[in-house]
């Protein structure tokens, strides 16, 4: 069987045959074919089974509106389900299978579902599967999933790569049919930056499928010549295979370009690119989609849209059948008949619902006016049609011309509502459409060629003028208007047989009747009750028909019944395309500290902190559990000296004559009188009085401070400070700039930190007298390298933080470790850091958690009421300062062998775990190698008055309930003698 239905002609390349596989059969087509046209050429029209009833289905359309011909394309991980054969460009080696059937396609074991159709009407989900509830997950859902549905995913990771991009233009033209090309011509000559995008791989739209003349030459030739001219313009970008998916605010459009879908291999290049297009103006020239008529058994393979039958004949050189008949309610059916005859396709009959004189005659063709198709036969392929006048006509392809629906989709993306035009029986765009968008051609209801081109030409001229372009006074391309008249005819009334409205979702006129009977009249209800217009085609061929049938049943005109509007995307998009490059390790940027490479060499285990990677601990050979490493790091630091990379802390450079006053406003505690050369701990509140962030700020000069923030809040604190600077303190002379990435900073902590530091600083006296606790200074180290030294301690040890320009960070950690060998200097990670801060009672995000105040944290006295600062006023609200508020405490298990658990709630001994009895909760816990048991921090009601009391730490989720003792949060060196030493 070799392309038995192939005709001569068509825009296919007969020099480039393509071999492809469908359901295991090896077949031939040509470059320029779609999978659908190649299948039809090979006499194959049974391509799938319907969603609900598993009815045999064939190719219905020749475009992206296709409801039936969905296939699984490619194999294994590359398999893509629900691919529309009608827009799948044929390539050598293409592999496809049909979907939604069990067993072979021509003998689907699930086809018995069709016999159950009386029970599977609209709303059957809601009625049938309501109860018992336990049956839902175990019984109903698996059955529904197995029997209904579309294609199957491979379950493997998508091996393809995707990209995104940004394009800018003065004018975006959506659609490269006659109207789009006419618009592009005008805009190109005017010098505007133009993008013209079309979902098809062959541009020209209907001009490639129909027989017309433009400017005295065949229309398809005019299209290719116009494209060739446009390509010469540097200001025109032509994007074939590019579907404009959505219209967003302010002239932004999204578009998907299929880069390699028409090739067997993508060779490591992105398969698809998702564009964000910024346009000053847009012209929608998206054409129109033909619709069907609902008549009994109208879903058989071989029953197709009439325009599609013509398209297969003229564009692809394929006869969709050997004996084609036409069923129409308008003049385009006759035009199509003429085109088919011209193309050498045999027509058997033309059936027109209108009782008018025949618009044309064809020899050997039966013509029936005022007649309807009332039934069809042929299970896997159409065999005959029965007419309302009793005639039975043998035919293997029925071309249905039910009228045209302008592709108004993108005009609705900002809730624009199309309006009804009776003369063409269709919805057309109204004035309510996205700002900057004009609609031309068939999309605007200009269904005839001459009118479409003329409106595109004129509209484009006006649009260009509105954005300042001079247009030349040119004539629009000349084309005549074909005859067009329609008498709406939607469905053949029949009680016996089902007449399909939505082929993809198996919605029939009976379902719409049921929906109407049960009170679901509104379009939105109709859709949800019957599933009309859902799934991959989004009702492109069925929405208007469904609405019209509903209107008839309600006895109301269509505009009063409702309007369907559309959301993005215009056609389905692979999730991979929306994700673009953002997958796996490229999901978000990775920030690394200057010691990263060195830490990797030490086998450090890294943890994500925001986008940062930080060393969590440094396992040594022989250590099998993270606790071993962490305990060792803590003990070594407390005993001698430990080094921790603290580069990730946010650093903000603050300068200006009002810098001190500004900080005094930002921080809750006083900052005006911090001496130069000193560091002060600062607490930031939100305006509602809740703590926001904390850190240390060093005064390097009279007008120069350097602030540190927590790692997590660096960006947010900077943002808030800019807000305060520009919006609340606009008359202050203060300047901010982030220097987080400019400095590598290491904490050097432990009794030997001073001795280690002394080995690398240049001429800096580190004695307590000259450089005491909370001192800071700009110094040099290692013979002249600029550095900043801060004597601050998060661990509670004698400690320093040393910062050098980032470029020296790697070298500095290596130098510190080398020089520290004699002290057994130990690198420590964020876990040891956390253990030591819990031992010391320093708070972090666990405690500053967005619900706690300075008073809760034991720092109530720091919030100055003698100055204006953010949050100071509302921190004094009664609800935040009453006697019952929780206070930060330290906690220890009564039985030292118990491990504490964060998240546990506190109760009095013997009291029931109820909300009323809740005393507070555990925020942070750690095993303290220093004390030899588990310790914790937490909040307890009036906890500051209860040191020494025993309470319960109750953890209902993990089933733990242990007695704990309340202690001071400052468990390690409560007097601070060590850090001051």
């Amino acid at each position, binding site marked *: 069987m070799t392309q038995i239905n192939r005709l001569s002609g068509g825009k296919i390349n007969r020099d480039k045959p393509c071999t492809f596989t469908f359901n295991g059969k090896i077949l031939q087509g040509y470059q320029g074919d779609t999978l659908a046209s190649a299948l039809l050429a090979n006499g194959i029209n049974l391509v799938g089974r319907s969603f609900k009833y598993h009815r045999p289905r064939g190719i219905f359309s020749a475009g992206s509106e296709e409801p039936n011909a969905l296939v699984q394309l490619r194999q294994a991980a590359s398999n893509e389900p629900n691919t529309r054969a009608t827009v799948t460009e044929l390539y050598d080696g293409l592999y496809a299978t049909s979907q939604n059937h069990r067993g072979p396609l021509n003998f689907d074991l699930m086809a018995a579902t069709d016999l159950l159709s009386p029970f599977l009407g609209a709303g059957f989900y809601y009625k049938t599967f309501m109860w018992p509830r336990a049956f839902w997950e175990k019984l109903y859902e698996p059955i529904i999933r197995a029997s209904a549905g579309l294609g199957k995913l491979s379950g493997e990771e998508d091996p393809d790569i995707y990209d995104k991009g940004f394009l800018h233009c003065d004018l975006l033209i959506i659609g490269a049919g006659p109207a789009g090309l006419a618009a592009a011509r005008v805009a190109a000559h005017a010098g505007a930056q133009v993008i013209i995008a079309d979902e098809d791989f062959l541009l020209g739209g209907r001009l490639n499928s129909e027989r017309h003349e433009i400017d005295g030459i065949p229309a398809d030739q005019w299209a290719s010549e116009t494209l060739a001219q446009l390509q010469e313009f540097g200001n025109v970008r032509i994007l074939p295979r590019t579907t404009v998916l959505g219209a*967003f*605010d*302010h*002239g*932004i459009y999204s578009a998907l370009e299929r880069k390699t879908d028409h090739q067997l291999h993508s060779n490591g290049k992105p398969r698809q690119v998702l564009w*964000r297009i*910024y346009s000053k103006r847009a012209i929608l020239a998206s054409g129109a989609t033909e619709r069907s008529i609902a008549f009994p058994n109208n879903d058989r393979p071989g029953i197709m849209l009439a325009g599609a039958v013509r398209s297969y004949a003229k564009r692809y050189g394929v006869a969709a059948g050997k004996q084609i008949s036409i069923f129409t309610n308008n003049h385009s059916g006759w035009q199509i008949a003429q085109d088919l005859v011209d193309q050498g396709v045999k027509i058997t009959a033309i059936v027109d619902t209108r009782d008018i004189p025949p618009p044309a005659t064809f020899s050997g063709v039966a013509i029936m006016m005022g007649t309807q198709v009332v039934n069809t036969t042929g299970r896997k392929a159409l065999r005959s049609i029965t007419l309302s006048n009793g005639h039975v006509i043998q035919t293997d392809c029925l071309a249905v011309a039910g009228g045209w629906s302008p592709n108004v989709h993108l005009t609705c993306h900002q809730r624009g509502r199309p309006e009804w035009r009776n003369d063409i029986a269709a919805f057309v765009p109204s004035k309510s459409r996205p*700002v900057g968008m004009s609609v031309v051609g068939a999309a605007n209801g200009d269904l005839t060629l001459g009118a479409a081109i003329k409106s595109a030409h004129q509209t484009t001229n006006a649009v260009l003028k509105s954005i300042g372009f001079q247009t030349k006074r040119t004539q629009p391309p000349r084309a005549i208007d074909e005859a067009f008249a329609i008498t709406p005819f939607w469905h053949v009334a029949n009680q016996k047989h089902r007449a399909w409205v939505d082929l993809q979702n198996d919605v029939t006129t009976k379902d719409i009747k049921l929906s109407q009977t049960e009170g679901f009249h509104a379009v939105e209800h109709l859709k949800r009750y019957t599933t009309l217009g859902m799934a991959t085609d989004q009702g492109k061929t069925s929405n208007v028909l469904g609405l019209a049938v509903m209107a008839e049943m309600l006895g109301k005109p269509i505009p009063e019944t409702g309007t369907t509007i559309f959301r993005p995307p215009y056609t389905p998009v692979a999730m991979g395309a929306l994700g673009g490059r953002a997958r796996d390790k490229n999901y978000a940027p990775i920030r690394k500290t200057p010691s990263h490479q060195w830490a990797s060499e030490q086998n450090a285990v890294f943890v994500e902190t925001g986008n940062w990677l930080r060393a969590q601990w440094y396992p040594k050979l022989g250590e099998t559990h993270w606790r071993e490493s962490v305990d060792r790091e803590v003990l070594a630091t407390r005993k001698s000296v430990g080094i921790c990379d603290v580069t990730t802390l946010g650093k903000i450079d603050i300068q200006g004559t009002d810098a001190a006053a500004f900080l005094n406003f930002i921080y809750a505690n006083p900052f005006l009188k911090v001496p130069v050369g000193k560091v002060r701990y600062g607490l930031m509140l939100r*305006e*509602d009085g809740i703590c926001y962030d904390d850190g240390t700020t060093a005064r390097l000069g009279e007008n120069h401070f350097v602030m540190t923030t927590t790692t997590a809040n660096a*960006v947010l604190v900077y*943002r808030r400070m*800019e*807000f305060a600077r*520009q*919006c*609340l303190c*606009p*008359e202050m002379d203060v300047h901010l700039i982030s220097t987080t990435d400019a400095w590598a900073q290491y904490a050097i902590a432990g009794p030997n930190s001073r001795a280690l530091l002394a080995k690398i600083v240049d001429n800096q006296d580190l004695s307590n007298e000259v450089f005491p606790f909370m001192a800071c200074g700009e110094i040099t180290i290692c013979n002249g390298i600029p550095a900043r030294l801060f004597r601050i301690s998060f661990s509670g040890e004698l400690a320093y933080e040393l910062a050098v320009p980032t470029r020296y960070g790697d070298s500095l950690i290596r130098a510190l470790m080398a020089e520290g060998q004699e002290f057994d200097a130990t690198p420590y990670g964020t876990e040891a850091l956390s253990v030591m801060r819990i031992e010391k009672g320093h708070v972090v995000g666990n405690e500053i958690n967005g619900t706690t105040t300075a008073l809760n944290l034991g720092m109530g006295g720091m919030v100055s009421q003698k100055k*204006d600062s953010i949050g*100071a*006023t*509302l921190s*004094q*609200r009664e609800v935040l300062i009453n006697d019952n508020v929780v206070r930060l405490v330290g906690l220890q298990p009564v039985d030292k062998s118990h491990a504490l658990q964060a998240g546990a709630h506190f109760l009095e001994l013997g009291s029931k775990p109820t909300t009323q009895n809740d005393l507070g909760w555990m925020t942070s816990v750690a095993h303290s190698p220093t004390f030899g048991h588990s310790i914790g921090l937490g909040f307890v009601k009036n906890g500051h008055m209860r040191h020494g009391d025993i309470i319960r730490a109750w953890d209902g989720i993990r089933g733990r309930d242990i007695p704990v003792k309340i202690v001071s949060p400052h468990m390690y060196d409560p007097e601070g003698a060590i850090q001051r030493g």
Partner: protein
Amino acid sequence: MIIHHPLLGPRDASEFVHLGDATLLSRPDWQADDAIAQFHEYLYQRENPAGEYRELWYHEQGDRSWLIITRNTLTHEISSVELARDVARKGSAS
């Protein structure tokens, strides 16, 4: 959305961070007798207009300007964009 930055021209809204009502510029006097009540109003009470709304946006991936944008909440039409600092200064002058 596109925001027409007064100094930089049209920029994609994704460069910006949205904060909310521009009345946040009118911070109450902390020394007023009813300061707590005033701050409460300032912080929590918002108009929610269906129509023109003045709101704060921050050009975080740009020049770090805080802007006051007048946006129609029904249509997203942006009718004016001002530097918040200029507005704040005018406020303090009046």
